């Protein structure tokens, strides 16, 4: 058999290119009803709804219809299914209007009067809900003994996932006591478990089916659970099929986004080396915590990114504001911290008047070093080789000589970074308990049953490929269909760059068992559950130990030209070198690499979302600008083989890694082009103008 890295055609290409793939809004169901959400127009207020006389066939469903607690089950259970007596952000759902005639639904929505008793909203950082801290070594002593202390603060803004398919969900009564949901989702079991809690039904009476998903990027991790609970409650009362598809503006004002952050770093320097860092990160969780505590953890754990610093004092806060809740987005807190760390490293090198490349290299993490939380980098780290490759393909050193001077308006920036693969700490072992199932029928057809979903990243192809390679028989068929919770065990959510490494790893083990016990023309069933590698030690409370089972590594180089009149940033070319263990499929991996880098670079210079007094200002693609084909430039990507012993065929995570280095690379390139220090992203033309014209 060929090396598993050799690309094969993505299995869902034919249906997607031809428009045959069915996304949630494409499902036609007889006797369908539609739902539209009435949302808060106030950032903080008590409220009372004055319901109009409803026309025949139109219904209202709100908090008074909830059969159980008003909670959307996720990590922190503080999201409500419907606001009941108070609203905490503009866009918070109050009720659904349901009917078969869309115009009538609109008319009723417009005629509902909500009486608000406004309260004083909070938009600053005063309402701290979570505080976390960890230390490494003896930071206090290191600061006392330092020759020099440097402090800088970095800020990052909101980022919208901007999946091209908006959020959507269908719920319908399958039998008198069973409800089925079809949704544009990343995590079928998150949705199922949330609905089971919301309705108090037996688990077997809630079924979740995954259609084609038109992009997610974290945006369909926790948010769809809320839509599912709302629709399920409506179906519970009305016993009719109901579809709810958000329009783009509704999606942008009401769904989760990347957490804005402030990161303050103090560095202790001795003999031109960093001996300690004191880092504080604060992230804006919006009106409810949701997943924010976990996002905070991932941000804090990345406090030294790809470097080893002996002494650390890391603190972090989640503060709540009366704004739309922030949540999961590819990278999950790491992009904010890694931006700050790489900018800080470059700024320190500049202040010390040392070569920035040598300075970065001198601090790089090496195998057997202690991680930020005192875990161990157990696997070989090949960053020096990766940096060499990146320098060679981008001609970085030569270009830097030419560009790094006043009025060149050209720049080249390099970021070095890592990303922890899979859930943080013991998440897999203690919370997720992932399971996968293989079934072989009497015809020797093998069926793959997993709950993670293909949302474009190519899982339908890669997971099948892993099973095919292990079984290695050309005379059998392997069948892998999108998830249906009536058939698939809970393999955990499709998040945290875990699918290939964790779920793929379980499938490889199951496939090996099947192969070794193969009985022709007999039905066989193999169930495989996650067992944590024994070496992992993690203390969740103290944030100490091995935060991740493995790390993927990356180098991004971005070249830009800044227009000296308009200050528009023009991307010239982008280069990447990654260590993702052993690649499962070259072409799919390159697709992830290109797409992630595009989002990461855009986070750094292009995508700007402002929320003013709780009101989202940029709410469609007309004003929230994501890269077009004209904005993007050529990319060149290399994967350096470094197989991971516990991954299937040596594979590690990739999905998020490809995003986290984009912002610092482009910001450093712009710094070189305009010869000014950057502390805030996105670096828009307005910001460049401010830096050039108003700062010394």
């Amino acid at each position: 058999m060929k090396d598993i890295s050799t690309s094969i055609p993505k299995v869902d290409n034919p249906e997607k290119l031809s428009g045959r793939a069915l996304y949630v809004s494409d499902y036609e169901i007889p006797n369908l009803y539609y739902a539209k959400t009435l949302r808060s127009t106030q950032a903080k207020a008590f409220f009372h709804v004055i319901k109009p006389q409803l026309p025949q066939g139109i219904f209202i469903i709100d908090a008074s219809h909830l059969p159980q607690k008003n909670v959307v089950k996720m990590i922190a259970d503080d999201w409500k299914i419907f606001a009941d007596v108070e609203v905490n952000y503009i866009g918070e759902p109050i009720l659904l209007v349901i009917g078969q005639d869309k115009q009538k639904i609109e008319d009723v929505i417009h005629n509902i009067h909500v009486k608000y008793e406004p309260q004083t909203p909070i938009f600053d950082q005063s309402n701290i809900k979570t505080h976390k801290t960890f230390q490494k070594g003896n930071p206090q002593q290191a600061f006392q003994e330092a020759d020099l202390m440097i402090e800088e603060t970095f800020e990052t803004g909101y980022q919208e996932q901007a999946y091209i398919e908006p959020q959507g969900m269908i719920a319908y009564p399958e039998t008198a006591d069973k409800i089925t949901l079809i949704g544009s989702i990343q995590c079928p079991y998150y949705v199922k478990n949330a609905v089971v809690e919301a309705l108090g039904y037996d688990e077997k009476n809630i079924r979740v089916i995954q259609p084609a998903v038109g992009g997610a990027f974290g945006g369909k991790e926790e948010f769809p659970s809320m839509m599912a609970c709302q629709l399920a409650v409506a179906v519970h009362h009305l016993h009719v099929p109901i579809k709810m598809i958000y329009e783009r503006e509704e999606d942008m004002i009401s769904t989760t986004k990347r957490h804005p952050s402030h990161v303050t770093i103090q560095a202790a320097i001795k003999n031109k080396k960093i001996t300690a860092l004191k880092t504080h990160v604060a992230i804006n969780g919006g009106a409810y915590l949701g997943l924010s505590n976990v996002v905070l953890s991932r941000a804090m754990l990345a406090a030294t990114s790809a470097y080893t610093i002996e002494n650390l004092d890391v603190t972090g806060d989640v503060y709540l504001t009366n704004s739309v809740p922030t949540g999961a987005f590819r990278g999950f807190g790491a992009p904010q911290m890694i931006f700050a760390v790489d900018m800080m490293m470059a700024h320190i090198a500049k202040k010390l008047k040392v070569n920035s490349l040598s300075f970065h290299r001198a601090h790089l993490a090496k195998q057997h070093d202690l991680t930020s939380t005192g875990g161990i980098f157990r696997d070989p780290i090949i960053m020096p080789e990766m940096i060499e490759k990146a320098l060679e393909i981008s001609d970085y050193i030569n270009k830097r000589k030419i560009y790094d001077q006043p009025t060149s308006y050209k720049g080249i920036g390099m970021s070095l970074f890592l990303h922890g693969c899979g859930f943080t700490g013991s998440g897999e072992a203690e919370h997720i308990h992932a399971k996968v199932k293989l079934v072989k029928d009497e015809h020797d057809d093998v069926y793959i049953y997993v709950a993670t979903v293909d949302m474009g990243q190519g899982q339908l192809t890669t997971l099948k490929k892993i099973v095919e390679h292990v079984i290695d028989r050309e005379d059998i068929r392997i069948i892998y269909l999108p998830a249906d919770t009536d058939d698939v065990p809970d393999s955990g959510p499709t998040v945290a760059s875990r699918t290939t490494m964790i779920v793929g790893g379980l499938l490889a083990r199951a496939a090996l068992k099947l192969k070794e016990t193969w009985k022709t023309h007999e039905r066989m069933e193999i169930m495989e559950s996650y067992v944590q590698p024994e070496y992992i030690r993690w203390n969740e409370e103290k944030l100490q130990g091995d935060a991740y089972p493995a790390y993927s590594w990356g180098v991004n180089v971005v070249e830009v030209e800044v227009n000296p009149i308009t200050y528009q940033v023009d991307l010239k070319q982008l280069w990447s070198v990654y260590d993702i263990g052993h690649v499962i499929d070259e072409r799919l991996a390159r697709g992830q690499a290109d797409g992630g880098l595009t989002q990461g670079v855009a986070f750094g210079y292009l995508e700007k979302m402002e929320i003013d007094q709780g009101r989202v200002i940029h709410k469609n693609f007309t004003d929230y600008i994501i890269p077009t084909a004209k904005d993007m430039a050529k990319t060149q990507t290399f994967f350096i083989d470094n197989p991971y012993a516990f991954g299937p065929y040596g594979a590690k995570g990739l999905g998020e890694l490809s995003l986290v280095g984009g912002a610092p690379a482009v910001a450093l390139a712009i710094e070189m082009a305009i010869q000014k220090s950057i502390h805030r992203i996105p670096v828009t033309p307005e910001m460049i103008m401010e830096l050039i014209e108003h700062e010394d």
Partner: protein
Amino acid sequence: MKIKFTLNQKSIEHEANPSSRLLDVLRDEFHLKGTKEGCGEGECGACAILVDGHITHSCLVPLANVNNRSVTTIEGFRETSQYRILEEAMVEEGGSQCGICSPGMMLAAQSLLTKNSHPTEEDIRDALSGNLCRCTGYNMIIKAIIRASKRGEGLW
């Protein structure tokens, strides 16, 4: 009001509100679900179709505007030999991930190649600038179109 137009090579006489969005008419009345809605404001191109061969955002077009014109959706285009060449090239270059933009991208490529059978990379970037893709970063789509333009010599 009765609107007459050609839809995927078939003559249609359709009785409907002339101000209905063409996108809704195609999806809801003709059940052509390959045309997607991504933004409803003509920015994303998921709803792109061909009107007399030109790439057009169907979410911005009232039905009346296609009176006496020829409309091609992905369902019509996928039956052509140009589609097969483009499909093959997209598969080989990895030009589709989540797929929600893919039908619109295929039609944007067709619209471009019809006017310019040997486009440069810059021509392609211009031609695709009305079609957003959040997954790929575009380069794999651009390479696919270049590949198709070479392989489909004489077809466009």
